[in-house]
């Protein structure tokens, strides 16, 4: 090792060495190291290239606030994770990590030319520069900018890992297992409350892990908590979001720290509902803003203490401190005691506590009060610093290989802000702290502004003599925002911090400005000559740190992404080569191709067989609602446009359902089984919507009606047997029902038995042929279907799918709600006046049918459309115009809603919604398409068997 590992100290396991790779080179570390500490121990200080200027960057911090050291960890195909903070990656044998945003290598990066051109890249540069010409943006500007300015590459392979998720409930949730969080947990330990304590690190302790004097306390406390039956401790778990009613989202990292790919889930999403929440998130140290503050080797004083005391690593051999706060002094005293060489303490303040000076003197550290760092020498690592008196401007150079910054502390109010708790400004801290809670929550310890680090001065930037550049004094390290950018934004007229933030992008990187927000606020405040509290505050939003999509998705992917509904007959269709389509969440057989058939040929064959002999169709997905009760007929009479009260038991009726605005929302054939019992059907996609609508009226408008509604969609399998031979197929199989035309007319229902199975047998037709729809309990569906296939073989019974069903119904002009209607179509528009009860004084939507807009002329109406070229099948959705020679943009008067090839008719047919369509019968209209303009004549909607003779046989 290169001598940055201290000979003693730290919590790493020195007898357990591990070998890992960074940028293709092998290094040694110890178990307990992070990638950051292990590389530091090897003398590596260069971790990445900055976002915009490609400047060399090292570590700033030791925790999850780290803005610079973002690396990619490669665990094999599909397991490459970019943009991980080196400070949060636990090293293990075989860990492979690479730096990002550099080419060809970290030390030689061609993109660094941007740094030399920095004067040309001010805030808003992209907005100002790449405006013109517009066409260059997609092909040239954006790809080029993305290549140059970027984070790591997203993996392209499918993620092979799986992710768990769970719900948890507790009385008390404590977020953060530092001293404050542990104290809170100890108080609740042993009581009869359920307590969960979570911490993002691999080991509880927080700040105490960097303070060996607290280790005995930590060990005692954790033993007590582990022994307490009511306390659950989750480590490697980040509470990333605080949602309504004390609902916390947290991600537990389960396997990423293990050398071998584990069988178990990679991460686990915890959704925790807590009675009370204690936030003990701690505080984050602020960097100082000065020229060259992003040079590798310039880092937070607290981070250096963590590296020394927790990991046993010196961040440098001769270390200087630039302080505005007492905490930095304490940190370097701790470093000195741990064996790190300290060369100087520079403090921007004129006076500091005498005890600090005494201690520094005792340790032999040079002290420069009322001084500031005005420059840093060294490109890939600090070599020396320029120090200057704040008043006399006398400067000198101090040789050192690391410079620590102690700019004061920022309470971590992220989760508090997610919960919509208010904040108040503390002038003494130069920071916002929690004020009024919006949930049952309290903040304790450093995240509430309570700490014992001593005092500090609140400054925006370090003083610099006039004339010296501060062009590279960085505020937001991850987004490469300098103090100059913020001042430029103010000069250009931005006044609110919300606007300054968006213009400069300060605080908008993946770290959400954990180290930069308050410095930005102070600089803007100075530039605007207004108090910080007058220029607004930006909001923190989830997630606290970036989380994987995999965890958020959990098991909800692939087949589990959303439920797939299958009918009881789906398995038969699959076994018999059906091609499926999705209808709402249902998988439905679209057609049943025989060997060598494409869709067109298969559908033509299916249609012809239905019209000439008999077809069989799985209609199980139809929505079904059982309507029961003494007021059932009255209720349906109020809901549907048709009259229902006079419908006799044993008869069916086509029902048209409007919304209160008068537009068609659903339709379906329904049967009266008994005076107080109806079997309703709805469209496949509308079942849930219709039931909800009916429940709404029943519960809230007409609670006096005694009616019960029950969804029976999945209780019945429905098999449609359609065609001139349908009766012949069923007759031998049915018992207790007279199938003759006289005894069982069209639009009737009978209850009986088919193949020994109780059935509700409908005589209905969506094809225009003699037809039956057999309802049997769902579990019998496939057995009955298979029996019908066998029994119907004599008549060449042909299974047909939804595509043939569409063609057959269109030949008859039967509409499909949602395809031929679009939520603005009235019964009159759809040519369904006959379905509206003229004598009914009221039903849902009735009053709207006489609204001025509804009775006005020129409404789009549903009509048939026959192309002049009978072989041409129009595209569904194609727009229709009256005059093809008008200039573009043309006035569109409607569109094609349904369009098919009809093998039965030997020509194409279509339906269309056309303005004033009912009065245009016979008119020629035009359908302009990219290749040519088609012509078609408006017709009636019934293309086949206009008298309905085939139905009544």
């Amino acid at each position, binding site marked *: 090792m290169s001598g940055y590992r201290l000979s003693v100290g730290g919590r790493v396991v020195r007898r357990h060495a591990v070998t890992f790779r960074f940028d293709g080179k092998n290094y040694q570390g110890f178990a307990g190291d992070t990638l950051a500490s292990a590389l530091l121990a090897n003398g590596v200080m260069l971790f990445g290239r900055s976002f915009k200027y490609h400047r060399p960057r090292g570590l700033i911090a030791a925790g999850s606030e780290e803005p610079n050291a973002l690396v990619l960890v490669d665990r094999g195909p599909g397991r490459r994770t970019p943009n991980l903070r080196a400070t949060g990656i636990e090293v293990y044998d075989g860990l492979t990590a690479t730096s990002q945003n550099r080419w060809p290598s970290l030390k030689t990066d061609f993109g660094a030319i941007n740094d030399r051109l920095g004067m040309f890249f001010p805030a808003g540069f992209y907005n100002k520069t790449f405006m013109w010409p517009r066409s260059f943006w997609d092909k040239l500007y954006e790809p080029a900018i993305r290549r140059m300015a970027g984070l790591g590459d997203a993996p392209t392979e499918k993620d092979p890992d799986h992710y768990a998720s769970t719900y948890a409930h507790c009385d008390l949730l404590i977020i953060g297992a530092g001293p404050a969080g542990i104290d809170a947990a100890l108080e609740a330990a042993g009581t009869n409350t359920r307590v969960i304590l979570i911490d993002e690190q691999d080991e509880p302790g927080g700040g105490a892990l960097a303070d060996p004097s607290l280790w005995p306390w930590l060990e005692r406390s954790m033993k007590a908590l582990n022994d307490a039956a009511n306390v659950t401790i989750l480590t490697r778990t980040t509470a990333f979001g605080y949602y309504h009613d004390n609902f916390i989202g947290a991600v537990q990292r389960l396997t990423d720290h293990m050398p071998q790919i584990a069988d178990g889930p990679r991460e686990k999403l915890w959704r925790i509902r807590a009675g009370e929440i204690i936030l003990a998130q701690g505080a984050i140290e602020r960097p100082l803003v000065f020229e060259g503050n992003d040079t590798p080797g310039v880092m937070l004083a607290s981070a250096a203490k963590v590296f020394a005391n927790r990991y046993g690593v010196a961040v440098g051999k001769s270390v200087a401190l630039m302080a505005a706060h007492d905490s930095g002094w304490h940190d370097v005293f701790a470093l000195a005691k741990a064996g790190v060489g300290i060369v100087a303490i520079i403090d921007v303040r004129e006076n500091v506590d005498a005890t600090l000076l005494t201690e520094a003197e005792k340790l032999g550290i040079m002290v420069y009060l009322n001084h500031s760092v005005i420059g840093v020498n060294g490109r890939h690592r600090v070599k020396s610093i320029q120090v200057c008196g704040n008043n006399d401007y006398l400067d000198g150079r101090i040789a050192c290989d690391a410079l620590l910054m102690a700019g004061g502390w920022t309470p971590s109010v992220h989760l508090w802000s997610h919960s919509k708790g208010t904040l108040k400004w503390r002038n003494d801290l130069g920071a916002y702290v929690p004020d009024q809670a919006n949930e049952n929550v309290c903040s304790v310890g450093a995240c509430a502004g309570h700490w014992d680090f001593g005092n500090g001065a609140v400054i925006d930037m370090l003083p610099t003599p006039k004339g010296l550049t501060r062009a590279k004094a960085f505020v937001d390290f991850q987004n490469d925002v300098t103090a100059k950018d913020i001042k430029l934004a103010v000069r250009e007229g931005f006044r609110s911090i919300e606007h300054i933030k968006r213009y400069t992008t300060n605080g908008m990187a993946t770290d959400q400005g954990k180290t930069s927000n308050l410095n930005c606020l102070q600089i803007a405040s100075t530039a605007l000559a207004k108090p910080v509290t007058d220029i607004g505050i930006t909001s923190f939003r989830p997630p606290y740190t970036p989380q994987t999509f995999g965890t958020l998705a959990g098991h909800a992917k692939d087949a589990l992404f959303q439920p797939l509904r299958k009918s009881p007959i789906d398995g038969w269709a699959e076994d018999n080569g059906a091609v499926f389509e999705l209808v709402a969440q249902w998988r439905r057989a679209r057609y049943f191709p025989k060997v060598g058939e494409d869709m067109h040929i298969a559908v033509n064959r299916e249609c012809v067989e239905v019209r000439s002999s008999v077809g069989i169709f799985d209609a199980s997905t139809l929505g079904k609602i059982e309507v029961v009760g003494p007021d059932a007929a009255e209720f349906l009479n109020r809901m549907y446009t048709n009259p229902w009260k006079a419908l006799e038991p044993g008869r069916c009726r086509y029902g048209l359902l409007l919304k*209160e*605005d008068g537009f068609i929302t659903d339709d379906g054939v329904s049967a009266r089984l008994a005076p107080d019992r109806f079997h309703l059907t709805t469209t496949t996609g509308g079942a849930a919507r219709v039931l*909800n609508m009916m*429940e709404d009226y029943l519960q809230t408008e007409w609670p006096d009606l005694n009616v019960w509604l029950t969804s029976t969609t999945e209780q019945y399998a429905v098999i449609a047997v359609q065609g001139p031979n349908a009766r012949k197929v069923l007759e031998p199989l049915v018992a207790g029902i007279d199938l003759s035309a006289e005894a069982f007319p069209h639009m009737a229902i009978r209850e009986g038995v088919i193949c020994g199975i109780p059935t509700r047998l409908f005589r209905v037709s969506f094809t225009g042929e003699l037809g039956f729809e057999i309802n049997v309990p769902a579990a019998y569906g496939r057995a009955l279907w298979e029996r019908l296939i066998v029994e119907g073989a004599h008549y060449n019974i042909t299974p047909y799918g939804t595509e043939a069903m569409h063609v057959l119904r269109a030949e008859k002009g039967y509409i499909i709600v949602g395809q031929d209607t679009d939520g603005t179509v009235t019964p009159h528009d759809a040519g369904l006046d006959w379905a509206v009860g003229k004598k009914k004084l009221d039903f849902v939507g009735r009053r*709207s049918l006489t609204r001025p807009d509804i009775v006005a002329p020129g409404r789009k109406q549903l009509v048939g459309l026959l192309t002049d070229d009978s072989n041409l099948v129009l595209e569904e959705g194609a727009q229709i115009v009256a005059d093809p020679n008008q200039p573009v943009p043309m006035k569109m008067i409607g569109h094609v809603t349904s369009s098919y090839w009809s093998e039965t008719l030997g020509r194409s047919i279509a339906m269309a919604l056309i303005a004033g369509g009912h009065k245009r019968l016979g008119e020629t209209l035009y359908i302009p398409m990219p290749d040519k303009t088609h012509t078609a004549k408006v017709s009636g909607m019934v293309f086949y068997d206009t008298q309905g003779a085939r139905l009544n046989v």
Partner: protein
Amino acid sequence: MILIHCPYCEEKRPEIEFANAGQAHIARPVDPATQTDEEWKNYLFIRANPRGRHHERWRHIHGCGRFFNAVRDTSTDKFETTYKAGEPRR
């Protein structure tokens, strides 16, 4: 995720069990046929959009299935109270 108190189940349940059903206390006119176009338009389309207290209907659709009324603050998303359909406005 908000917890909503169902006045029928008498329990606080997660919001994913519920569906919003628009503004509350808009009764369907008893005899729509006698409504003027203006009155009917107001019933159909005109809704309040307050910042603050809002009376709205919710349905415990993945629970007991009942519609009920609620007072929710639209700026904080907090439920002030929920009560059964048919009970007076709160």
